[in-house]
């Protein structure tokens, strides 16, 4: 069964571990067709770095250690991103859903159109900049990354609203975004931006995004992933040991054919 309606969730501020755990929980449940395709809009309550799924930070970021600036590995590819004052979103959908093209670049263009439309609603003349960015006034103001796992596409993106209160790690390969506040000459309210981006996705995707919340099973799974995976330094900084649980539901793989465990070799 494919859900006819998409879900729109505003989850407000949370830390990097929680935000990444929620996105994976949604991905797993979308893969099981237990929740509808989802657009989640969120932000960050403490500054943090997220690093790409395959990004080797052992050499790049000797200073990015636990106990310093929060740093968490994403499921999605690409380079590190600084978070704090930015507005982020994730779009999670079965790859069998024909609304989003299977081609990587075409899917970026389709999804980024929602961000472009949202920024235009804020009075910012934005345009898609392949492969993964959105530009305004010649500056990159938003970027994104994807994971394709178990037949599900997870697209995570972020939009720079203001300057980050995060000292840039000089050796961490990190995306550089120009905050919208520099372009409009003032602060942009994060709630206004969230509403505009939601409207942008509605228009660009042509779907009726039904305002919803995280489901109870989604929260439970996110809590499991939070403890068993995202809060574990090994997930972000070291070798995720062979056989280590991706979640606590290892006895019942979440999707037929997809393993409950993975091996990271970094």
């Amino acid at each position, binding site marked *: 069964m494919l859900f006819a309606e998409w879900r729109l969730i505003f989850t407000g501020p949370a830390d990097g571990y929680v935000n990444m755990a929620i996105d994976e929980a949604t991905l797993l449940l979308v893969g099981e067709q237990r929740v509808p395709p989802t657009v989640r809009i969120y932000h960050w309550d403490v500054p943090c770095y997220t690093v790409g799924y395959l990004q080797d930070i052992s050499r790049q970021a000797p200073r990015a250690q636990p106990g310093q600036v929060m740093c968490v590995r994403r499921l999605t590819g690409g380079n590190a991103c600084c978070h704090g004052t930015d507005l982020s979103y994730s779009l999670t959908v079965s790859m069998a859903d024909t609304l989003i093209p299977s081609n990587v*670049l075409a899917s970026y263009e389709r999804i980024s159109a929602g961000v472009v439309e949202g920024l235009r609603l804020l009075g910012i003349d934005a345009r898609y900049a392949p492969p993964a960015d959105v530009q305004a006034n010649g500056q990159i103001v938003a970027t994104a990354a994807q*994971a394709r796992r178990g037949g599900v596409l997870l697209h995570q993106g972020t939009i720079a609203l203001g300057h980050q209160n995060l000292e840039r790690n000089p050796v961490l390969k990190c995306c550089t975004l120009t905050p919208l506040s520099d372009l409009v000459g003032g602060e942009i309210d994060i709630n206004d931006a969230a509403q505009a981006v939601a409207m942008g996705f509605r228009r660009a995707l042509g779907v009726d995004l039904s305002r919803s919340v995280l489901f109870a099973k989604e929260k439970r799974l996110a809590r499991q992933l939070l403890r068993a995976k995202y809060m574990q330094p090994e997930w972000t900084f070291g070798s995720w040991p062979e056989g280590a649980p991706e979640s606590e539901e290892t006895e019942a793989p979440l999707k037929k054919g*997809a393993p409950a465990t993975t091996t990271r070799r970094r």
Partner: protein
Amino acid sequence: MVKFAKDRRYLPTHEWVKLEGDEAIAGISDYAQDELSDVVYVELPEVGETFAKGEMFAVVESVKAASDVYMPMSGEILAVNQELEDSPQSVNEDPFGEGWFVRFRPAEPGQYEDLLDAEAYEKHCQEEREEGG
């Protein structure tokens, strides 16, 4: 023009496998690399690991997308293509040749017959492309 090599079989998730005696080699299809665009990194398993059919055994990262790669048949990894570490673009340039991922010993050779042949796989890709726009 996307190629569909006829001397091997395919999973619907776009992995190919080719039998060579009692061994097999696997990689991702020309259609898959075309969909993913520029491959920038491939994470491969280690020699000696065993995987079940349909189990994730590698991750391929293209332009900002990290994608799982699934085992087309159950088996033990005998060799991995170390060249991909320095030349991941081989996956784009020659997905059926230089861009191979792993050589493995099939645990259940009969699984090969259950996979899609080139004609069926090409039809599957056409349907996917039409549906996905």
